[in-house]
């Protein structure tokens, strides 16, 4: 052996050694992550068949009570109606807006497309407050207007009804449908549509035999997502829903936990039902998406798909679409904005002499909870988003590049939280850690754990798709020159994925800041966060202050997005 050979040999063996260490470390991270997402489901299941805390004698009384107790049965029926109604509304609106803006000659399609996505940035609480301001039976803008027009007390719309709740949730879920469906409409293969037209299909037949069926996987995935989100939705049932005395499972779970007499066993059983529905939906959604594979075919010459001419309906439909797009973000925001300046809540008060800065002054400087909760929220937003991204990188690396022993299990497990409603996840986490003496219960750390558990699936999807796009040659080069895997990850992949990682971080930050259902059972007065603080103000019923508070949440949520968005855009293409 010549002296020259010794150098690469040494490099190779040191590389192999650190690879073994990498394997151990990454495997441990993966195992802990699987544990983190799985135990809440097990704990919920155990708690729902335990008489007292976990470990006490077993019973089926809680599970039967879900269906036997009048209140629970009522909530069950309401949840079904609410979920069905909101899903139908969101699907209808989302698909229609996506189709109109992507595939017709409707004016302003791009603007409407942007507006349709805007509610994803706005915390749902603002939509709730806004729609209360607009459609409250006595003091809502619309009914005030109706009374003024008819000359007597008139109620045209009432938000405190099942249809009111469905309306708000449907609007809130529409952007998710739009997001999943619009891209498909826009990129559909024009040759397939031309083939149908030459084969004798008129526009309508083309639409329902070719265009819509081609989007079947995306439509099904959107429907299942919307069902999960509606069934597990907490904020609307817990605010307007409780005010209107329309009980639903998520709000009932909260009450069974926190109101006297507390019945955590029943809450766990109700959670278990929601989890079962959610996981079932996730299963079918995955199946639909994986079967979508056969929908990808040989690409042809890429001409843009034809735009459906709307004829005389162009402008009316454009205005209608704009109105719907606006009513899920801009209109409620304006309502909240105007409410924030009122001395007392009545649209009649919207005169110069009744406007005031007092609400801002009070909420921002005098209200005792506001700054602690803002601090906690910001802390959790930053650490939570960072933790999600870092963990997602480690897991994606383990699954995609290392193809570790448990890669398959990790992949499946990381999907689970998508099917678990926040309130149910909260029940699971609470039921375990309340038993651990001197542990993290009652600290900010348990909230952090909850956030990471709930949002790791989405973070992992983000990072995985970014990692898949990086060609392995780019990684092999430094590895051949002696870098270990971890070094490669840090030096090559992380910089290449930067836009995706920033985007992922932002999304995590936004959803953590607005999250309520997850933490409503886990917080205590010393760890209150902004979104939970909003629930307090809501129950006090002083809406102008609520408006200020929710605007603060909006600002804190949107500012980092606006700042960092520039960096994300910078190299995203």
């Amino acid at each position, binding site marked *: 052996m010549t002296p020259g050979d010794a150098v690469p040999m040494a490099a190779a063996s040191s590389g192999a050694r650190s690879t073994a260490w990498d394997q151990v470390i990454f495997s441990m991270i993966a195992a802990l992550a699987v544990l983190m997402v799985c135990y809440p489901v097990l704990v919920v299941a155990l708690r729902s068949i335990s008489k007292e805390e976990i470990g006490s004698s077993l019973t089926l009384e809680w599970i039967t009570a879900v269906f036997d107790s009048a209140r629970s049965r009522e909530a069950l029926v309401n949840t079904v109606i609410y979920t069905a109604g909101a899903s139908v509304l969101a699907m209808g609106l989302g698909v229609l807006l996506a189709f109109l803006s992507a595939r017709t000659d409707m004016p302003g399609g791009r603007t409407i497309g942007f507006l349709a996505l805007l509610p994803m940035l706005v915390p749902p609480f603002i939509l709730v407050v806004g729609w209360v301001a607009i459609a409250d039976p006595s003091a809502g803008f619309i009914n005030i207007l109706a009374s003024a027009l008819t000359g007597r007390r008139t109620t045209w719309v009432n938000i405190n009804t099942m249809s009111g709740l469905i309306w708000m949730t449907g609007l809130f879920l529409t952007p998710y449908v739009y997001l999943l469906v619009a891209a498909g409409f826009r990129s559909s*293969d024009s*040759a397939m549509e*031309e*083939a149908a037209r030459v*084969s*004798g299909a008129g526009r309508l*037949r083309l639409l329902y035999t070719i265009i819509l069926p081609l989007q079947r996987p995306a439509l099904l995935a959107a429907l299942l997502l919307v069902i999960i989100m509606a069934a597990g939705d907490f904020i609307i049932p817990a605010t307007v829903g409780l005010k209107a005395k329309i009980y639903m499972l998520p709000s009932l779970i909260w009450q069974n936990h926190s109101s006297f007499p507390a019945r955590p066993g029943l809450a766990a059983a109700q959670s278990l039902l929601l989890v079962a529905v959610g996981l079932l939906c996730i299963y079918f959604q995955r199946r639909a998406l994986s079967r979508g594979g056969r929908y990808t*075919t*040989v690409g*042809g010459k890429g001409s843009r798909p034809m735009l459906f001419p709307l004829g005389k309906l162009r402008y009316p439909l454009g205005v209608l679409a704009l109105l719907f797009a606006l009513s899920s973000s801009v209109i409620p925001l304006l309502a909240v904005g105007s409410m924030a300046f009122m001395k007392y809540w009545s649209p009649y008060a919207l005169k110069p002499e009744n406007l005031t800065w007092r609400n801002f002054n009070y909420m921002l400087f005098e209200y005792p909870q506001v700054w602690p909760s803002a601090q906690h929220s910001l802390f959790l937003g930053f650490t939570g988003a960072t933790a999600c991204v870092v963990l997602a990188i480690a897991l994606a690396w383990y699954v995609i590049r290392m193809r570790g022993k448990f890669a398959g299990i990790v992949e499946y497990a990381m999907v689970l939280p998508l099917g678990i409603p926040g309130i149910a996840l909260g029940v699971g986490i609470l039921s375990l850690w309340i038993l651990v003496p001197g542990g993290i219960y009652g600290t900010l750390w348990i909230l952090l754990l909850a956030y990471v558990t709930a949002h790791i699936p989405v973070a992992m999807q983000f990072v995985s798709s970014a990692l898949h796009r990086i060609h392995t040659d780019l990684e092999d080069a430094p590895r051949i020159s002696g870098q270990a895997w971890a070094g490669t990850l840090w030096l090559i992949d992380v910089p290449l994925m930067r836009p995706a990682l920033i985007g992922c971080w932002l999304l995590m930050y936004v959803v953590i800041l607005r999250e309520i259902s997850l933490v409503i059972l886990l917080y205590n007065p010393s760890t209150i966060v902004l979104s939970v603080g909003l629930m307090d103000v809501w129950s006090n019923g002083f809406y102008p202050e609520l408006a200020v508070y929710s605007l603060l949440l909006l600002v804190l949520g949107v500012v980092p997005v606006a700042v960092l968005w520039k960096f994300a855009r910078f190299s995203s293409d």
Partner: protein
Amino acid sequence: MKFSEDASGLSVWGLIKSYGGEGGVRALDNFSLDFPAGQCTVLLGPSGCGKTTVLRSIAGLIAPDEGRITIDRSVVFDASAGSDVPPEKRRLGMVFQSYALWPHLSVAENIAYPLLSAGMPKTEVARRTNAMLAWIGLTGMGSRYVHELSGGQQQRISLARAMVAKPRAILFDEPLSNLDARLRERMRLELLALRQQAPFTSIYVTHDQLEAMTLADRVVVMRAGKIEQVGSPEEVYKRPRTRFSADFVGIPNLLDATVRSITGSDLIVETAVGALAARSWRTDWTSGARCTVAARPTLLMVQPGDAGEGRSGRVIRSVFQGASTIELIEFDGTEVAIESLGEERHAPGSIVAVKPALGAVFAVLDD
């Protein structure tokens, strides 16, 4: 170009189509052509010559700015009258480059689609679909999905779908260009066999001269939205009218020449490789005029040594390509490619004599 609206088959007249608004690219520049019934007309040209625009205008997938289109004597498009029959009412069949088969439908459902669109009763649809499946050799595979089949099978399904409703004409938009070379060759011969079994009116767009030569009853060479030359494949290949046509059908030797004598339409021209018998489409040649001759590489012969009546040249390169040999020979600064089936090859630098093959008639170009 004569235009007869009473002919059965397809006619387009005065088609103009511009892209990119005023001053944009003219994809079609006053394009007129008859497509006789029962014949296969191949539109041949490089990308951007407007051949696909003609096809899509006939299908009704794009509307020309000006012009008229008739199918079997009925007007389907007339810009001046503002009439435009939508594609679904034109009763045509079309085969796409990407096959454009629908992945959410089975093979049989794909084929049956035009029949169902026409509102045909279910039993008749099933009968015709099964007949079509048998015809393309996919009997029993009707319930499969498109992604389970090979490229060649997909192409056949796409053809069956285009033919099943007995359309007035079938439009082919570069249907073989997604296939690999061997499969392309096989499909080309299959298409030819089909056409010979039962002739149907077809318009075929391609940039592959071999496809054009094999499949066409008539080849239309297109350039920049206009017709460069129309004729039978043999005519276009043996007597290209212009440099562009000669180049596009694959003739590498365009030789400068001088007209020496004229006898009716027969010319004798003087070139670097000697005097050649030639023919031209133009009739206004005078003795001594400069012209260009397209010399097909197979019409010249190489003989070793400078003996004989041929002109002498120096071998630059000899390229063995299996069935034939191409030799690149220089005559006073003019390079000429000569293709021979013989086994004999010549070393670079050696001097050889070249003469035209017995009875060879060369093409004098118009430009």
